[in-house]
């Protein structure tokens, strides 16, 4: 293994802990005897029940047949705990076989604690819309980024992966796009720490391989270290996050040590990955036919000297499948993880290390690797008044990629283009007749990052019902990236030497701290229960970024050292600060555990806004009523109605925008720097406001076997921050200002979960979710005269595109025709791009199933979406030009009278045809149905009990991701970003050992 030293590092840490395992802290008293038995629910054995000797650290867990064994003394008491069941205590006495029947807890829904950020709640008590994805679900798919775990699983959350290359980012929209111009990213909170997901990568050197240079900082969070991800959607759940809660909140909680026997888990997996759909391209014969026909159509009989593909310069019988050659490789993945956790009732700990390596589907030696270490320690004082929790995660990432994605080359290179290597094994330039894509492999993108998140929570109960708590965190992210482009990527005919080599080096450094003192008061007055929290937040983030480019090196050996460059240019140097301060609170009231009222509020101050508007107030009211309480319906076991209303804000507008400053710009004059006003000064702009409304119904039938929930939401964002267009006499073309534009996101979300079948050997659980989002621009004063006039239409979604309307190919001329909307006899961008279509999904969702039979289990998830998208033709040149094309172009016009879907081929010489094609790429002709059903993930596992007494078990599993995609879409993967490789299809084999 190439990076084995890092792997060793991870394991050394873990095993160091193992060796300490016998230290006095965790040593066990000599037990008198072994107690064993079977734990059942009355009907079926219960797997994974926690068995603990009371007032000790000794524990065990029931196996797949419900069997457990533990060593205890006669006077000991065993405590059996299991989620969804009542805790049971049994005195040992003089028996050695102790079978236990656990009772279902009527309040089972209450057993699952849901993290709501500043407080916790349960399915019963919750007044807001909070979705939860647990470790069990995350483990079902071989993924690199926690966001992938949410795809297809959570209603209202639309996630699209930008690229299949490791390290890339995601587009995440929770309940649609709220803002016209400001950010639409949710707020991410990891173990209580707001996590800045703005990339530190620089567009100066990352953009060619990582779409939008958006190297996602969330890659630093290893999905395997996550206990749960909660998605907060409505006002009730998000208003406590004030100015940052508008686009939803994603809470990530890492795994924590639990009371019980010390557990060691070691797992390892290995797998392969490929692109999941190739485009249907022309083969050499078809391609040459297209080219020859194009020349004939254009009346050119003698092929020009530069038409190497048809004039005989290149072998006309040669065929290369460039997709196979350039992006068709197999990426290998490898993962290794070790974790030790456990603890007494007072102190719990967890330590885990994980190493992961992944190569790419590109040719050449590229790889991504990641090393993460997570640790967690909790301690409680003797009377449980004092509590301390420390959590820290540290990640090292290394990404080695070519400096650009080859997807475009694979699509465009003529299929009879020359061999990439010549007979001597060197890059073949074929007498300077082509630009060999593999020469590009010499230019390398390197990215190294380090990431620390640490968090300490200290709480102390002053009185029984009054607790003081301080949450303090510190963290940093460092990202260094370099792109080294040696002169060897250019054709040697240019006669370049290392004087033309360049190196671009970027560094980003972000650090933050946050502290949140809080007071919590809880009190029961017979049937009335109050729970109140008041707290404050102080937070500071500092970001430094810089990029330098070096050109000209004495030799390429020094290409990685910018000091060796002949000239160095500083491309960027920036340092920004963001400070944030607020007061927040929550008052929760419940009556007889059937009526719940929840009021949350926050007063936020942010350095992103001018002195007139530094502070803003946000708040929400939520209510829930359990109408089945006190009634007795046999078929309906639980019914809840809930609703919420509130105001949140969006402050994603960048730092310092309100400042009245002069900026350094490129107008040096007479020895003085160029100094010009940075922007029109608007000290008055403030938060975008989003009013969220939600009503939901939650039902459970047949003794909680089937659960159904339906939610309707309606969010309206106003006070939109936009670049407000101004006449030139103001000195600027626009000013950043709040405009009374209004955007509405509304929709229904459905979720059904159920236990479809359950008996001794077999169980089948299924769940289905469906989101029907709708987005509309409600108001935009002065839209016609604004710079947004060609982008938006009032009453239509924000995600519309305005295009020419394709009328088809004229059977006489063989050229595309378009609808002349304004009837002026000419086609113009302003007048005739009136075909409007919406590219946002009409609906999306997922269907997941978990089946288990004896020791076997099978999990699979189907994801689906109904939407339109740009098809294969969007960014193409006319067929007939010296670029390969899609097979679908063969249905073309050849002679007058032909009815065809593709116009006449042209080499570009026919200006009219060329122009028509360029309009075609901006017409309804490039819109296709991009709906799909995807077998998102599948996992087959076999559990093997090795040693029942010691609770040792082993699990072998086979996982797949993106195995099957059903879609009529012809442009590759329906979710693929044009020009970048699609999300990969992965197959992984793994084994996990628990001790």
């Amino acid at each position, binding site marked *: 293994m190439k990076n084995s030293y890092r792997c060793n590092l991870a394991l050394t840490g873990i095993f160091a802990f193992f060796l300490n395992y016998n230290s006095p802290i965790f040593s066990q008293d000599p037990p008198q005897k072994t107690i064993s038995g079977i734990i059942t629910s009355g009907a079926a054995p219960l797997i994974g029940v926690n068995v603990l000797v009371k007032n000790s650290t000794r524990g065990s867990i029931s196996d797949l047949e419900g069997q457990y064994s533990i060593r205890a003394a006669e006077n000991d008491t065993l405590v059996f705990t299991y989620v969804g069941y009542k805790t049971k205590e049994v005195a040992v006495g003089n028996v050695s076989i102790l079978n236990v029947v656990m009772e279902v807890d009527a309040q089972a829904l209450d057993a699952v604690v849901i993290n709501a950020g500043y407080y916790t709640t349960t399915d019963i008590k919750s007044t807001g819309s909070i979705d939860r994805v647990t470790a069990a679900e995350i483990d079902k798919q071989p993924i690199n980024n926690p966001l992938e775990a949410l795809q297809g699983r959570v209603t209202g959350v639309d996630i699209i992966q930008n690229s299949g290359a490791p390290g890339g980012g995601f587009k995440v929209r929770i309940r649609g796009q709220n803002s016209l111009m400001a950010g639409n990213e949710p707020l991410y909170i990891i173990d209580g720490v707001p996590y800045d997901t703005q990339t530190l990568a620089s567009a100066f050197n990352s953009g060619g391989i990582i779409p939008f240079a958006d190297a996602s900082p969330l890659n630093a969070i290893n999905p395997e270290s996550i206990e749960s991800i909660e998605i907060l959607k409505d006002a009730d759940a998000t208003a406590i996050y004030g100015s940052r809660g508008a686009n939803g909140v994603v809470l990530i909680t890492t795994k924590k040590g639990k009371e019980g026997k010390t557990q060691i888990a070691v797992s390892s997996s290995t797998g392969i990955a490929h692109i999941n759909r190739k485009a249907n391209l022309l083969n050499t014969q078809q391609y040459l036919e297209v080219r020859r026909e194009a020349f004939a159509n254009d009346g050119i009989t003698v092929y020009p000297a530069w038409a190497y593909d048809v004039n005989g310069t290149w072998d006309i019988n040669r065929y290369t499948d460039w997709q196979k050659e350039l992006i068709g490789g197999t990426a290998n993945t490898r993962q290794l993880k070790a974790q030790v956790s456990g603890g007494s009732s007072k102190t719990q700990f967890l330590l885990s290390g994980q190493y992961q390596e992944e190569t790419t589907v590109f040719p050449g030696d590229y790889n991504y690797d990641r090393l993460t270490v997570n640790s967690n320690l909790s301690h409680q004082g003797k009377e449980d008044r004092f509590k301390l929790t420390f959590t820290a995660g540290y990640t090292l990432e290394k990404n080695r990629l070519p400096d650009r994605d080859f997807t475009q080359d694979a699509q465009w290179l003529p299929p009879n283009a020359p061999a990439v290597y010549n007979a001597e094994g060197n890059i073949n330039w074929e007498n300077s007749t082509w630009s060999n894509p593999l020469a590009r492999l010499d230019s390398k993108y390197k990215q190294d990052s380090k990431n620390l998140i640490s968090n300490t929570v200290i709480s102390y109960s002053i009185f029984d019902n009054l607790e003081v708590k301080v949450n303090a965190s510190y963290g940093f992210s460092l990202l260094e990236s370099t792109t080294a482009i040696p002169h060897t990527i250019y054709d040697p005919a240019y006669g370049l030497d290392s004087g033309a080599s360049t190196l671009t080096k970027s560094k980003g450094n972000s650090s933050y701290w946050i502290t949140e003192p809080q007071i919590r008061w809880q009190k029961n007055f017979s049937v009335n229960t109050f729970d109140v929290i008041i707290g404050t937040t102080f937070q500071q983030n500092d970001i430094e970024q810089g990029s330098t480019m070096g050109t000209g090196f004495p030799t390429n050996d020094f290409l990685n050292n910018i000091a060796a460059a002949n000239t160095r240019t500083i491309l960027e140097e920036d340092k920004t600060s963001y400070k944030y301060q607020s007061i927040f609170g929550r008052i929760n009231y419940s009556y007889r555990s059937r009526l719940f009222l929840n009021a949350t509020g926050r007063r936020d101050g942010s350095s992103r806004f001018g002195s007139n508007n530094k502070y803003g107030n946000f708040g929400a009211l939520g209510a829930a009523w359990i109408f089945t309480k006190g009634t007795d319906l046999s078929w309906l076991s639980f019914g809840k109605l809930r609703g919420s209303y509130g105001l949140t804000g969006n402050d994603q507008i960048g730092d310092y925008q309100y400042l009245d400053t002069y*900026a*350094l710009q490129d107008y040096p*004059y007479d020895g*003085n720097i160029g100094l*010009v006003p940075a922007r029109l000064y608007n000290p008055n702009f403030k938060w975008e406001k989003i009013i969220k409304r939600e009503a939901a119904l939650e039902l459970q039938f047949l003794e909680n076997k089937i659960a159904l929930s339906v939610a309707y939401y309606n969010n309206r964002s106003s006070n939109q921050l936009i670049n407000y267009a101004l*006449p030139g006499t103001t*000195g600027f073309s626009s000013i950043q200002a709040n405009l009374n534009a209004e955007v509405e996101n509304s929709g229904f979300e459905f979720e059904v979960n159920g236990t479809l079948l359950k008996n001794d050997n077999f169980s089948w659980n299924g769940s289905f979710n469906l989101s029907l989002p709708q987005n509309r621009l409600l108001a935009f004063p002065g839209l016609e005269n604004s710079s947004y006039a060609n982008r938006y239409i009032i009453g239509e979604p924000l995600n519309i595109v305005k295009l020419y309307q394709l009328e088809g190919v004229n059977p006489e001329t063989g050229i595309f025709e378009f609808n002349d909307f304004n009837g002026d006899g000419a086609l113009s961008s302003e007048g005739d791009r009136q075909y409007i279509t919406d590219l946002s999904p009409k609906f999306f969702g997922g269907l997941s199933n978990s089946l288990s039979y004896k020791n076997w289990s099978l999990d699979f998830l189907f994801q689906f979406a109904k939407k339109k998208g740009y098809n294969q033709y969007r960014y193409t040149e006319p067929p007939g030009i010296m670029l390969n094309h899609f097979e679908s172009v063969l249905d073309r016009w050849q002679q007058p009278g032909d009815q065809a879907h593709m116009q006449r081929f042209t080499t570009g010489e026919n200006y009219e045809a060329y122009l028509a094609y360029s309009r075609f790429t901006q017409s309804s002709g490039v819109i296709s149905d991009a709906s799909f059903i995807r077998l998102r993930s599948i996992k087959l596992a076999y559990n093997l009990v090795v040693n029942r007494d010691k609770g040792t078990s082993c699990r072998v599993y086979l996982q797949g991701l993106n195995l099957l995609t059903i879609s009529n879409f012809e442009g590759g993967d329906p979710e693929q970003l044009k020009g970048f490789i699609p999300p990969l299809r992965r197959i992984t084999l793994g084994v996990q050992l628990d001790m």
Partner: protein
Amino acid sequence: MKKTIYHSIKYKFHLLLFLLLLCGCEDFLEVEEPLGQINSAEVFEDEATATAAVTSLYGKLRDEVLLTGKAEGLGVLMGIYSDEMIYYGFGGEPLDNFYQHQVFPDDLLIENLWNVAYSLIYMCNGVLEGLANSTKLSEESKSQLQGETLFVRAFAYSYLVELFGDIPFPITTDYEVNNKLSKLPIPTIYENIISDLLEAKTLLGTTYISGERVRANKIVATALLARIYLYTEQWELAVAESNTLINNSVISLEPNIESEFLKESTSAMLQFKPKFEGGNTEEASTYLFATGPPPFVSLTPQLIESFEDGDLRRQLWVGEVTDGTETWFYPNKYKLQTNTGTSMEYSIVLRLAEQYLIRAEARAKLGQLTGALEDLNTIRNRAGLMDSEATTQNEILEAISLERYHELFSEFGHRWFDIKRLGIANEILAPIKPGWKPTDIHLPLPENELLMNPNLNPQNPGY
């Protein structure tokens, strides 16, 4: 940790108090300024940054606004708009619209011309406001910088008013005022320009502040003022202003016209310092070409044929390219396209020869024909020509007009502004430009500008 401490009520009370106090830190949200930006007020409390804010105005003129030697500058735009230059680009391009007199209100070039000029005016207003509020700058440097800024603003307005006619005249940075301005009539604009220049003259000294002639002083402000008086037909005043320049000892007419456009030219009153050390002018890159047909623009046959035999300017300031059958001409005033290590040529914005011709014309208008001829002949003799044969007032005025054509071609659209103010545009352009209409005397106001600020209506006639 002692239990007694934990349970002391007093301790708990203090803890609560502490928490509440934490909520009250008002200053917490103050952040340091970002790197690379300076608070506007602070810019004008420091000599170096205040100077940089002012010199950036020249940088803007040199690189993108009105007087730039690049393709979007007035030299090219108004050159092809009049009878100076031929445009060789594609049909339908914005520059071709200028050449063909088919300019539309929504042309990007029109919008750009307008926007960058008003952006410069905004910067000038910002500097003037900043200087007015400055407390730490010395009165001396304040005067110098104010004077320079007033000059630059007047300079920009003087072109805008000639190009567009009635225009808005922002004098503040307040966008809520500037976004609803109405147009001012041409005479009022000129009154404002003149009063700005008069103030600039009192604020500025006669020395060039940085040694080279690259920033405005009293001489420079006077030169523009003389031109404005000529344009507004205030003949005595024009004569008076140009007198002070012609009689000035700091500048003198460069005897050798070969050296007229070099960095050291003694005729130069205001030059643009090149952007890079060792760089030369943008004009050279824009105008020079080596093979025909010309890639961009060439001088018109009308101009070339109108030169008298033996005119040194025809020989030295005009370049020729031929393919054997056809010959093309280009402005060859600036000859260096590349970096020469040490700069050799600076783009000359205001030069003394123009002042001789201003005085000649004003004198002629006043009936001082001898004096007028004297000035005209100074320029002719320097170009290797004999004295003019004109005798009557009209002949002399015509001769001066032709002399300006020959002397000032390819310099910031002088020819266009001359034929426009002399009322001969129609007569000259109608025969050679099929698209010419008398209403083309002014450019259209940008369409977007009218849409966003209806107070600017009506559009100029003919558009």
